C-alpha cells in the first residue's frame, strides 16, 4: 500500500464503492435507453477515476480491469458505438468483479489471488469485446437498422443466456443480476433459472472463480463459444463459492453500517425541528414547575434530558473533520508529483479539526487549487532544489487548527516562493498596474496581486493548475463563506497561504461557568486545570494579596488571579472579599501572556458548543470571542481568554483606588481617564524590570565602546556635533550589582537619548528590550530612591518606572555641585494667596490642599496621569483634560471658586498652552486664575513668550517637588 495512511485507503475504498454504485445505476439507465450524454460521460469518468486511484494505491488488477472497461466505454461515449447489452453486461461483470476485489481488500488488504486469476481471463475478453463491438457497430451504424440489429447480432453471437434474461427485464439489471446470484444459493428459490444456471456453469468450469454476478455475466458473455451448452448446465453451486459470496456480504452489514449517507437538507430540517422541540420542552418544563404532580415532573425531566441529547447530537451531525477533504490531497499530490517528475511529500496536521459540512464542501475546491498551485508552481524540480541547496523532496504542509474563533487552514510549501519581479512584470503586462505604481508597492502588496482577477504567473499554462481558475476565484470562494485569505512568501524559501474560515458552525468543547448570576463558556483548550479552594479553619490554602492583587500559590508557583466578576464589572473589585470567601473556584488558563487563574462563582458543566460570532457592534469587546446557544435555548457568551487577561490588566484598579481614596472628595468629581501610556522597557543589567516613559525618550542609539571618551570624570561620546554625556543608569541609581553592568565583553553599548534643559543626555543601559503599553497608573508609594517614579503592574510582573529627568539631574548635580544646577522654575507674576495658612504638619498641609481643585491640561497620557496622581497624592483635587480646548470647555461658565489653578502643558493639539492662558486671561470669570506651565523647553524665547502670554509660573516638567513648592507658595500654604 506504499505507505499510504489508513484514512487514505478507507477513502479510496469508500470512493470506489460509491463510483461503482453510480456506474451501475447509470448503466441501468443506458440499458433502458433513458440516458443522456452526461450519463455516458459520468460512467466514463468514474471508470477513469477508479482506474487512476487503483493504480495509485497499487491495486493493479482493479486498475487493469477498469482500464479495459474504460476502453470499451470510450467509443460509446463518443457515440461511435451503441452500447449493446453484451457490452453492458460485460461492464456489469467488470463492476462486480471490482466490488469483489474491494471486499477482498477490506478483508485482507489485497485484491485476492482468486479474483486476480479470474481477472486474467476477463480482461482480454472485455478488450476483445470492445474491439469487436467497435467493428460491428461501425458496420451496423452505416445501414440504419441500428440499435436493435446490432443488439440482436450480439445477443446471438455472444450469448443468449443470462444476459438475455437480464436485459429483457425492466428492473435495473444490476439488481437483477445480484438477485440472480443470490438465488444461486441452494436455500433460495430460483426466480431466474437461466442466470443461475449460467452462474453454476461458469463456477463449475472455473472452480476457483468467484461466483459473483460479475463472473456470471462476464463469463457467460465471453463463453459465447459454448453456446447453448450453457443453457442447461445444472443448478449446482459449489459451497465454497457460496461462502465466498456470503462473507463479504456480512462484512457489508457489520463494517459499513457505521456510516450512512443522508441528504444534508434532511439534517437541516432535523436541526430546525429539534430547535422547535427545545422550545416545546422549555414550555413543558415551565408548566411542570407549577405543581402538576410528581409523575408529570419526572416525565418532563426525562423529556428535558432526551431533548438536550438529541439537540446536541443533531448539531454534531453536520460537523465533519476537515481531514475528509485533506486526505484526498495525498492522491492529488502523488498524481501530480509523478506527472511533473517532482519529489513531493504531503504532510497533514490537524485533520481532526471540525467544520460544518457546508464549509468543508466550500473550502474543498479552493484548497485543491491551492495545493495544485503549490505542487505545480511552488515546488521546484529535484535538480533545481538540489542546486538551491534544498532537500530533493519538497514538502507541502497543510495545517488546520482553531484560532480566535476561526478555523485556520494553512497550505505551505518550501518551494521557490513568489518572485516580485515576475509578478510585477505580469501585472504590468496585463495592465493591472503601471510601472510607477508597482515601484511604490510593498512586497506584500505585490504578492497580493496574484489574487487580482485574470492573473496567472505560470509561464506556460500547464494542464495541471492552469484550469482557467485563478487565485481570484479561490479568493472569491473563500470570501463568499465569510473567510479570508492571506499569503506570505519569501523568495527562495516558500509560500504560505492562510485561509481563515469562520467558525460560525464549528463545535468546540467548552467549560460552562457562572459568575455574577450569568453563565459563560470558556474554550476547553485554554483550560489547564481547575482548582477548588475551600477555606479551612486555619485559613491555609488560600488566596493572598500581592501589591493589592490576588495571587495563589499553585504548587509553589505564584499564579496571578483575575476575578471574573470584577473583570467584567459585574461586581466591584474587592480582592479582600476573595480571601474571605469560604470557597473559591479557580480555572487555571493559559493565554499568550502566560498562565493566570480565573476566579468564578461556580463551575457548571462542560459542553460542546457551536460558536456563533458576535455582531459587529460588539467587536470592540475583547473579553468575548463569540456566543453560543445552550441546550435550553439561552444565549451564553464565550470568554476570550487572551482578551480577558488584557481586560484584567486594564483595571489596575488597586493603585488607582488608593490614589482616589487619598484624594478624598476629588474622587467623585475628577473624571477618570483611562488610556494607554507607552514605556520603553530597558534591561539595566541588574535584576528587575525597568522602563522609561517613552515620551521622555528622544532617540535610541548604540555606540561603540571605543568611541566613549572621558571629559573629566564624565563619560561622553561625540554625537551630532556635540558631546553627549553618558549616565550609567544602574550605577547612578546605586542599584546592587551595578558595578558589573557593561563590564562584559560586549563592544557596543545601548543608550537612550533624552533631552533636558535643551541639552541631550545619554542613559546607558545594558539592553533596550521593547516598547510596551501599560494602562495602569504608576504606584509611587514604592519608590525607594530618587530617580524612580514608582512601579506599575504589567501582566504578572512589576515594572519599575525610571524618572529619567531626575537621574540626569542627580548625575549633573553630582558632577558640578548642587549650586550650579540649572534653574528649572521661573515665576512671572504674583497672585493673591488663596489661603495664607500655616500647615503644622504634612498631613495638615494635605488636608488644606484637599479643598483646592486644579484643572490639568496635558495631551500626553503618561504626564497627564503622572501629574494628576502626584498632585492628588499631595492632597489636591485634580480634573485632567487632554488639551487646551477641553480645558476651555471645562472652564466655560464655572464659578470663580470651582477651580483654583490651571496647570498646563505647552505643546498640545487644538489649543496649546500659550493660547489657553491668553484666553483664560481674557475670560471674566477665570481671568485671574493662576496658570502654571509645565514644559520641557525652557529657552529664553519660550520664557519671554510665556511671560507675555500671562503665565503665573513656568516650570520644568517632571519636577514634582518644585511644582508643589510653587503651588504652596501661590496658595499661601506655608510649613510651620
Amino acid at each position: 500500500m506504499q505507505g499510504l495512511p489508513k484514512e487514505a485507503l478507507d477513502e479510496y475504498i469508500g470512493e470506489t464503492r460509491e463510483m461503482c454504485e453510480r456506474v451501475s445505476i447509470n448503466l441501468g439507465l443506458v440499458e433502458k435507453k433513458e440516458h443522456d450524454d452526461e450519463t455516458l460521460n459520468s460512467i466514463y469518468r468514474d471508470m477513469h477515476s477508479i482506474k487512476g486511484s487503483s493504480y495509485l494505491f497499487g491495486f493493479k488488477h482493479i486498475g487493469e480491469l477498469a482500464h479495459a472497461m474504460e476502453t470499451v466505454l470510450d467509443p460509446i461515449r463518443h457515440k461511435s458505438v451503441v452500447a449493446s447489452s453484451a457490452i453492458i453486461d460485460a461492464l456489469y461483470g467488470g463492476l462486480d468483479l471490482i466490488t469483489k476485489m474491494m471486499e477482498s481488500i477490506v478483508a485482507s488488504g489485497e485484491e485476492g489471488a482468486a479474483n486476480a486469476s479470474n481477472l486474467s481471463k476477463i480482461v482480454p475478453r472485455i478488450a476483445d469485446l470492445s474491439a469487436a463491438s467497435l467493428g460491428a457497430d461501425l458496420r451496423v451504424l452505416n445501414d440504419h437498422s441500428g440499435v436493435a440489429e446490432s443488439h440482436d447480432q450480439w445477443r446471438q453471437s455472444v450469448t443468449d443466456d443470462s444476459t438475455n434474461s437480464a436485459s429483457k427485464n425492466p428492473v435495473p439489471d444490476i439488481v437483477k443480476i445480484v438477485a440472480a446470484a443470490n438465488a444461486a444459493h441452494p436455500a433460495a428459490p430460483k426466480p431466474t433459472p437461466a442466470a443461475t444456471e449460467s452462474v453454476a456453469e461458469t463456477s463449475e468450469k472455473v472452480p476457483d472463480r468467484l461466483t459473483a454476478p460479475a463472473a456470471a455475466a462476464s463469463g457467460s458473455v465471453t463463453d459465447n463459444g459454448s453456446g447453448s451448452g450453457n443453457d442447461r448446465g445444472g443448478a449446482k453451486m459449489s459451497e465454497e463459492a457460496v461462502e465466498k459470496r456470503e462473507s463479504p456480504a456480512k462484512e457489508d452489514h457489520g463494517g459499513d453500517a457505521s456510516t450512512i449517507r443522508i441528504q444534508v437538507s434532511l439534517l437541516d430540517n432535523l436541526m430546525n425541528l429539534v430547535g422547535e422541540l427545545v422550545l416545546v420542552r422549555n414550555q413543558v418544563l415551565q408548566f411542570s414547575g407549577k405543581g402538576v404532580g410528581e409523575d408529570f415532573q419526572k416525565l418532563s425531566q426525562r423529556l428535558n434530558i432526551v431533548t438536550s441529547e438529541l439537540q446536541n447530537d443533531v448539531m454534531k451531525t453536520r460537523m465533519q473533520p476537515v481531514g475528509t477533504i485533506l486526505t484526498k490531497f495525498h492522491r492529488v499530490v502523488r498524481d501530480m508529483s509523478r506527472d511533473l517528475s517532482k519529489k513531493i511529500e504531503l504532510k497533514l496536521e490537524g485533520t481532526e479539526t471540525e467544520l460544518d459540512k457546508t464549509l468543508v464542501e466550500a473550502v474543498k475546491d479552493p484548497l485543491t487549487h491551492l495545493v495544485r498551485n503549490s505542487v505545480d508552481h511552488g515546488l521546484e524540480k529535484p535538480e533545481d532544489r538540489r542546486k538551491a541547496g534544498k532537500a530533493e523532496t519538497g514538502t507541502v504542509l497543510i495545517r488546520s487548527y482553531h484560532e480566535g474563533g476561526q478555523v485556520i487552514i494553512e497550505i505551505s510549501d518550501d518551494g521557490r516562493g513568489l518572485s516580485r519581479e515576475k509578478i510585477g512584470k505580469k501585472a504590468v503586462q496585463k495592465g493591472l498596474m503601471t510601472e510607477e505604481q508597482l515601484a511604490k508597492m510593498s512586497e506584500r502588496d505585490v504578492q497580493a496581486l496574484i489574487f487580482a482577477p485574470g492573473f496567472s504567473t505560470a509561464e506556460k499554462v500547464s494542464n495541471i493548475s492552469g484550469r482557467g481558475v485563478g487565485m481570484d476565484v479561490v479568493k472569491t470562494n473563500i470570501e463568499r463563506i465569510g473567510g479570508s485569505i492571506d499569503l506570505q512568501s519569501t523568495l527562495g524559501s516558500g509560500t504560505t497561504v492562510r485561509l481563515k474560515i469562520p467558525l460560525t458552525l464549528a463545535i468546540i468543547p467548552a467549560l460552562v461557568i457562572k459568575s455574577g448570576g450569568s453563565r459563560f463558556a470558556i474554550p476547553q483548550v485554554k483550560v489547564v486545570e481547575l482548582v477548588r479552594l475551600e477555606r479551612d479553619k486555619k485559613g491555609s490554602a488560600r488566596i493572598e494579596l500581592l501589591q493589592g492583587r490576588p495571587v495563589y500559590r499553585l504548587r509553589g508557583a505564584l499564579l496571578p488571579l483575575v476575578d471574573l466578576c470584577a473583570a467584567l464589572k459585574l461586581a466591584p473589585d474587592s480582592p479582600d472579599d476573595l480571601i474571605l470567601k469560604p470557597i473559591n473556584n479557580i480555572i487555571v488558563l493559559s493565554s499568550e501572556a502566560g498562565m493566570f487563574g480565573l476566579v468564578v462563582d461556580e463551575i457548571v458543566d462542560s459542553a460542546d458548543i457551536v460558536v456563533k460570532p458576535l455582531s459587529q457592534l460588539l467587536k470592540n469587546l475583547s473579553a468575548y470571542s463569540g456566543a453560543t446557544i445552550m441546550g435550553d435555548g439561552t444565549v451564553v457568551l464565550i470568554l476570550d481568554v487572551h482578551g480577558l487577561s488584557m481586560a484584567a490588566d486594564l483595571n489596575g484598579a488597586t493603585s488607582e483606588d488608593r490614589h482616589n481614596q487619598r484624594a478624598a472628595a476629588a474622587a467623585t468629581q475628577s473624571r477618570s481617564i483611562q488610556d494607554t501610556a507607552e514605556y520603553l522597557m530597558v534591561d539595566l543589567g541588574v535584576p528587575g524590570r525597568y522602563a522609561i516613559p517613552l515620551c521622555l525618550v528622544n532617540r535610541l542609539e548604540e555606540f561603540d565602546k571605543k568611541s566613549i571618551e572621558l571629559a573629566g570624570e564624565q563619560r561622553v561620546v561625540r554625537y551630532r556635533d556635540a558631546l553627549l554625556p553618558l549616565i550609567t543608569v544602574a550605577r547612578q541609581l546605586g542599584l546592587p550589582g551595578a558595578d558589573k553592568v557593561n563590564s562584559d565583553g560586549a563592544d557596543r553599548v545601548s543608550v537612550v537619548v533624552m533631552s533636558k534643559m535643551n541639552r541631550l543626555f545619554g542613559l546607558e543601559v545594558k539592553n533596550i528590550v521593547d516598547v510596551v503599553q501599560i494602562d495602569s497608573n504608576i504606584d509611587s508609594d514604592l519608590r525607594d530612591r530618587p530617580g524612580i517614579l514608582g512601579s506599575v503592574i504589567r501582566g504578572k510582573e512589576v515594572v519599575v518606572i525610571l524618572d529619567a529627568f531626575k537621574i540626569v539631574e542627580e548625575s549633573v548635580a553630582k558632577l558640578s555641585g548642587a549650586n550650579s544646577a540649572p534653574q528649572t522654575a521661573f515665576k512671572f507674576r504674583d497672585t493673591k494667596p488663596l489661603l495664607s495658612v500655616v500647615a503644622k504638619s504634612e498631613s495638615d498641609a494635605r488636608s488644606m490642599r484637599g479643598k483646592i481643585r486644579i484643572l490639568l491640561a496635558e495631551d500626553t497620557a503618561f504626564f497627564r496621569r503622572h501629574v494628576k496622581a502626584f498632585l492628588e497624592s499631595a492632597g489636591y483635587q485634580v480634573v485632567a483634560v487632554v488639551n487646551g480646548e477641553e480645558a476651555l470647555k471645562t472652564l466655560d461658565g464655572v464659578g470663580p471658586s470651582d477651580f483654583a489653578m490651571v496647570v498646563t502643558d505647552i505643546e498640545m493639539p487644538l489649543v496649546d498652552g500659550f493660547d489657553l492662558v491668553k484666553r483664560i486671561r481674557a475670560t471674566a470669570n477665570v481671568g485671574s486664575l493662576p496658570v502654571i506651565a509645565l514644559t520641557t523647553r525652557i529657552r529664553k524665547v519660550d520664557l519671554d513668550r510665556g511671560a507675555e502670554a500671562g503665565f503665573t509660573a513656568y516650570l520644568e516638567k517632571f519636577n514634582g517637588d518644585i511644582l508643589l513648592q510653587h503651588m504652596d507658595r501661590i496658595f499661601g500654604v506655608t510649613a510651620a
Partner: protein
Amino acid sequence: MEAQTSTKSGVSKESGGSRRIQYSTFYVAKRLYGIDVTRVQEVVRPMTTTKIPLAEQFVHGLINLRGQVVTALSLHDLFSLKDKAPAELMNVICKADGALISLLVDEIGDVVELDSDDFEQTPHTIPEGVRRFMTRVYKVGDNLLSILDVDKIFQALNG
C-alpha cells in the same frame, strides 16, 4: 430646456413618481417611529435576553432567534430618552449589513403606506442623539412619524 425638464418631471409624477412606501411603525416612549418595511424581518414578542457585561449601555443583550444570536439594542438608551422603558419590550428584527439586529420598542404600531414625496425634513431642533438616525418625518393624522434608517443606526454604532 426648462420646459423639457418640467415635462419630464411631470410625466414621471404621473407614471407613479411619487412611490408609495410602507413603513412598519412602533412606539418608543410614546413617540412614533417607522422603519422601511422591507428592512424588517419580523417582530418578536419579548424574549429572554443575555446581558453583555462591559458593553455599551444601549446594547441590551443577546437573544436567541431560532438558533441565530441577535444583538438587541435598546432604543430608549440609544436615543437617550429619559422615560423609563417598560419591563417587557418587543423585538423589531431588522436586517442590517448582512446581519440581524433587534430594536427594542415599547409597542408595535400598524404598517402604514405613505407617499414618498409627502415627507418633511427632520427639524434641526431635534436632539442630535435621535436626529442622526432619522431620515425624514411624516405627518400621520394627529401623530408625527419619525422615519429611522437602520443602516444609519448600524453604521453609527460601528463607527
